[in-house]
């Protein structure tokens, strides 16, 4: 067969080097071309990751056994010989940027799998890559050079090693720098400054929310084919809102990043919630930030012990001690009490007297009060059982006001009672007692001390907030509560007003461990009515106006933009088939009962809608037995229909 000259650009020779020309015949296979090239360059290195990219056809020549003829390559082909894994800047859900080597030749689906393996995120099928929103670069922002966590040094071969060191993949243990990367990945970020939230783009409408979904990359094509260049920036995000077997034990990074994505979705009002829900999200963020700073490694440990066991433990410890008598032992087992002078006020009784001082005794779940300490042996003036009552703080540290507002249920209704404490210490103790008692727990409950601690730290926060704003960053206790809620509430409430509201919500979550708090945050997020909806603006067949299609894990919804309401819901389990007419760019879906819908897509390519639907159907096929192996073939079959080559 006749030989002809093929010129190939070898990237490793530098950008200015001329193409290398080799003599080939049409029956030479691609592998042979590569061998010739390598010989010609005379560079000694590991070429195993290199492959040929055919620039005009936008394709990789990955089948090394195929001949040039079979590929249809002639002398005019512009070929580039280069590594398949190339550096990419990834913007993570937590807002940090990591630079790593990603595969530019595999379909994006597999590329994401490789990325997630490096980052130690299970279930990569739930994530994908999207093009970033163009940032209007302001000049002053350029001064702040962003920190980039570099993972490009990680040898690709080492990533697959499953062995974990300290719960951390081995490749992160190689240097301090690498450990810092892992820390960034696995520990939640401190709440952002309120200005940071305010500055970010916030979607104002469903249509705004729809635009982001036009940016998803095609999972069935490779990065090179989608014009992604080396060192380009992409976002890595959870795309499919169905999180399979989230387990704090194995999913440290996954859980953390998912939390971050959820947190930002809340802060930027990407998903709507009520004020009460926002306060609870705020309280959880505060708690998570606090706990993750104090116990960064305790994510998977569960210290909860039931009281019997802990009592047993203390019993055994006591038994080892020689002098401990049984009497002493039993004393430690009897419930602790609080005794102090407090002031009480019952607004319902229309007496002119305000707060009156009594000697108070807190025992089990009840408060009793007496005229004085001396009379506390006899009958109390009143005894109040706090079980099932509502407890609210009314505190102003600056004004030294420490009120506990109790709403105590009685057969006749709720009775309002205020207890006035003298100081922070007293308030924290009695407040903690009231909270436990309202849940039916006694002072002997193991959470009593930590409850006191959390109340005090929240008081400290208020103290700092009420002081000058400049010293707010001085102590790590001080979080500006505006950092925990969306900007809407920055306008609505001053921090002074916001703090007690978040504190109020905080009392229900203060005892959670870090992983429980993260899980709770995600649970509440997932219980929001709009959770899991990805919006696309579409035009239904026969309709003259734009409408919004919401794509959820189990259904499609049609939102009328005029009404702003869901007008129709279709569930996937009733879906018989769906098709894409690639010529007229129209998605057609048939449901059971002869229901047919068809629409064209406005804010995203119909390929993206198609992939969303197929993707969710793929997600629903996952099962426990096969959870380790991802059925990539099925995924592509369900999502990549148009790539009929």
């Amino acid at each position, binding site marked *: 067969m006749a030989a002809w000259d093929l010129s190939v650009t070898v990237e490793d020779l530098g950008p200015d080097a001329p193409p290398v020309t080799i003599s080939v015949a049409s029956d030479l296979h691609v592998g042979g071309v590569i061998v010739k090239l390598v010989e010609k360059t005379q560079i000694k290195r590991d070429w195993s990751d290199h492959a040929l990219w055919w620039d005009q056809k936008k394709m990789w020549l990955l089948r090394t056994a195929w001949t040039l003829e079979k590929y249809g390559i002639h002398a005019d082909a512009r070929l580039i010989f280069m590594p398949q894994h190339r550096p990419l800047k990834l913007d993570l859900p937590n807002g940090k940027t990591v630079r790593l080597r990603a595969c530019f030749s595999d379909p994006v689906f597999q590329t994401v799998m490789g990325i997630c393996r490096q980052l130690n995120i299970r279930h990569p099928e739930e994530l994908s890559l999207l093009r970033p929103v163009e940032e209007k670069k302001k000049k002053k922002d350029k001064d702040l050079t962003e920190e980039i966590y570099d993972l490009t040094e990680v040898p690709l071969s080492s990533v697959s090693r499953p062995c974990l060191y300290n719960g951390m993949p081995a490749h992160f243990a190689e240097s301090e720098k690498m450990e810092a990367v892992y820390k960034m990945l696995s520990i939640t970020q401190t709440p952002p400054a309120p200005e940071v939230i305010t500055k970010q783009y916030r979607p104002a409408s469903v249509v705004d929310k729809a635009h982001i979904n036009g940016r998803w990359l095609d999972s069935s094509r490779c990065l090179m084919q989608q014009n992604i260049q080396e060192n380009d920036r992409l976002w890595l995000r959870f795309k499919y809102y169905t*999180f399979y077997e*989230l387990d704090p034990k194995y999913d440290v990074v996954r859980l953390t990043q998912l939390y971050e994505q959820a947190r930002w979705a809340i802060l930027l*009002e990407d998903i*709507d*919630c*009520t*004020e*009460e*829900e*926002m306060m*609870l999200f705020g309280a959880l963020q505060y708690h998570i930030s606090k706990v993750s700073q104090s116990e960064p490694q305790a994510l998977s440990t569960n210290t909860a012990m039931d009281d*019997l066991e802990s*009592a*047993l433990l203390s*019993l*055994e410890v*006591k*038994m080892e001690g*020689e002098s*401990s*008598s*049984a*009497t002493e*032992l*039993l004393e430690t087992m009897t419930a602790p009490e609080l005794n102090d002078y407090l002031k009480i006020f019952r607004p319902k009784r229309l007496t002119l007297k305000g707060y009156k001082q009594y000697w108070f005794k807190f025992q089990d779940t009840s408060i*009793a009060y007496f005229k004085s300490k001396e009379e506390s042996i006899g*009958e*109390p003036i*009143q*005894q*109040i*059982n706090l*079980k*099932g009552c*509502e407890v609210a703080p009314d505190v102003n540290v600056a004004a030294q006001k420490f009120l506990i507002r109790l709403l*105590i*249920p*009685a*057969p*006749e*209704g*709720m*009775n309002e009672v205020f207890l006035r404490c003298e100081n922070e210490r007293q308030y924290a103790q009695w407040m903690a007692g009231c909270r436990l008692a309202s849940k039916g727990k006694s002072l002997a409950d193991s959470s009593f001390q930590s409850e006191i601690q959390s109340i005090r730290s929240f008081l400290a926060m208020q103290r700092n907030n009420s002081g000058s704003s400049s010293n707010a960053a001085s102590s790590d206790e001080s979080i500006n509560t505006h950092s925990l809620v969306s900007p*809407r509430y920055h306008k609505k409430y001053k921090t002074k007003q916001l703090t007690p509201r978040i504190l109020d919500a905080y009392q*229900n979550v203060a005892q959670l461990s870090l992983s429980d708090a993260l*899980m709770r945050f*995600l*649970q*509440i997020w*997932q*219980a*929001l*009515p*709009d959770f899991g909806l990805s919006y696309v603006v579409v035009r239904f067949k026969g309709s003259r106006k734009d409408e919004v299609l919401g794509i959820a894990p189990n259904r499609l919804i049609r939102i009328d933009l005029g009404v*702003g*309401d869901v007008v129709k*819901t279709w569930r996937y*389990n*009733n879906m018989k088939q769906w098709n894409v007419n690639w010529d007229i760019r129209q998605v057609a879906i048939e449901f059971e*009962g002869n229901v047919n819908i068809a629409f064209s897509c406005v804010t995203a390519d119909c390929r993206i809608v198609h992939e969303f639907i197929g993707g969710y159907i793929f997600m629903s096929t996952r099962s426990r037995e096969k959870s380790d192996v991802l059925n990539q073939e099925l995924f592509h079959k369900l999502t990549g229909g148009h790539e009929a080559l």
Partner: protein
Amino acid sequence: SESLHELEDTDLDALMADLVADLSATEEKLTAEIQGLKAPSPPLSSSLVSTSATSPLPPPQAGKPSKEDIEAQMKADKIKLALEKLKEAKVKKLVVKVLMNDGSSKTLMVDERQTVREVLDNLFEKTHCDANVDWSLCETNYELQLERTFEDHENMVEPLLAWTRDSENKVLFQERRDKFEVFKNPQNFYLWKKDKKTLKDMKDKDKELLIKENFCGPSIIVPDLEGVLYLKEDGKKSWKQRLFQLRASGIYYVPKGKTKSSRDLVCFVQFDNVNVYFGKDVKNRYKAPTDFCFVLKHPQIQKESQYIKYLCCDDDWTMRLWMTGIRIAKYGALLHGNYKAAEKKSVVSSAWTNRSTPSSSNQSTPSPTIRGTRCPPHPQEDFGNLPPPPPPLNEILPPPSPDPVLPPPPPSLASKPSGPHRKQPSGFPPPPLGIDNNLPPPPLPPPIDEAPPDFLPPPPPNTGIGSFPPPPPNTGFGSLPPPPPPPPPPVSSLPPPPASFGGIKKSLHPPPQDPQFLPPPPPDPVFTSAGAPPPPPPPPPAFAATPRANARPAGSVKKMPPAPPKRTTPVAGGGGGGGDLMSELMLAMKKRSDH
């Protein structure tokens, strides 16, 4: 003073042996020990429970193990046991009267730790009913005309303690379709906007998927409910329309002039401290626009109050949607767990019930007692081994019987087991089928409903608790371990039976000819005042009646410490200034053991 090491070596060892061997001696022993330790409270009459709860323990009779680690293990186990017993000693028990569909009633002893599910299981055995999932316990509030089905996981005693002393509230044993309807037809709740035909033709696999999606995921999804309801404004008489929305975090409404966007919603109520009730007769009582009213209130509230929230719906189905939705938001996965447990129970039961159809839910069935012609399954064995079981009455009453839960009594006076018969071994077959098959059709002899022998003890000869200060004949109620304050609150759940029921009169008469019969709980003052025919029980001992009179719900704010409650045991009289019952008891014990 005595060190715990010594205690372990001697007393605990002995205790272990005793526990298995001799119950009464155990009590004495343990009491003595605890006395020595100045323990807060001695455990009373709860040994059987503890024993069965710690079945994994190596039997001490097997000889003392020589190895130290085994000893250490035993030591730990013993301490655990001792702690359990201490806990046990504080357990309250309540006498609860449950009204049946036919107007008859059953009186049960309920341990404060028992769940509604356990009480239901107990009732299944007593009534021979088909045990289908719809059987429920409900409470009615007479004064407010409210009704609520207890959830199976709920504690049984707690809501009853909220009743006022003279309450006419009742506990009903009924089939309630609404309890688990959401699991049978989830589409009606989660896809309620779809047309009726689609909902009706829903395939089973689609129903399952709905349950899986909404109850088995990482978070519970509440039905998407939004609509205009009528709200009775706080303390006012008028009703106003508002657009309400149900969310997992509570019920919200859209304020006037605002959009339906989540951030504009105003929180109406959160579910932590309220229960949802069905409000009866609201049109008459409150001039409500419709009679489909649900009510949200704190369970403690028993009387008219501005803190009670009334919401009216346009139709019955909307009301049921909301009530179920609220329960899902409040209880979440617990409801699903309850359903699965109830389903399991009903499957087992229907396997044993040959003639009655388990799914039939005929509300007009006169009495559950006659539903199953055969006896329900016999979970006696289970009961015996269940750690820690809610002690059925037999366990806590003399004479100690090896079988904690007796087979349901054959429903005829003639076959009523007398004292000795009751000492059947565990797993003893139910009453002979022959008797059952010869059962006369309904109505049954009413006395059986009133006084099933398996939970009302014969007048105790007291051999079982010989170590005790001799309890009065009525110990069944009086001497149950009354914890230090509050005093044993035998909640008076014995409202007057509705006069409209003719049968009730008869059923209220205990069979005087039966020597084994023990009077029902002492007559309730309300009972007589309401004009119902008073039962002619043997005159209850005076002291047995007193605690009832003094009974007050624990946790009530207003009625705090009255005169120290009267004791039900003779010791109480002699105890004097001991302060609380337990210490008095202890004193008495000491006297005895010093002897």
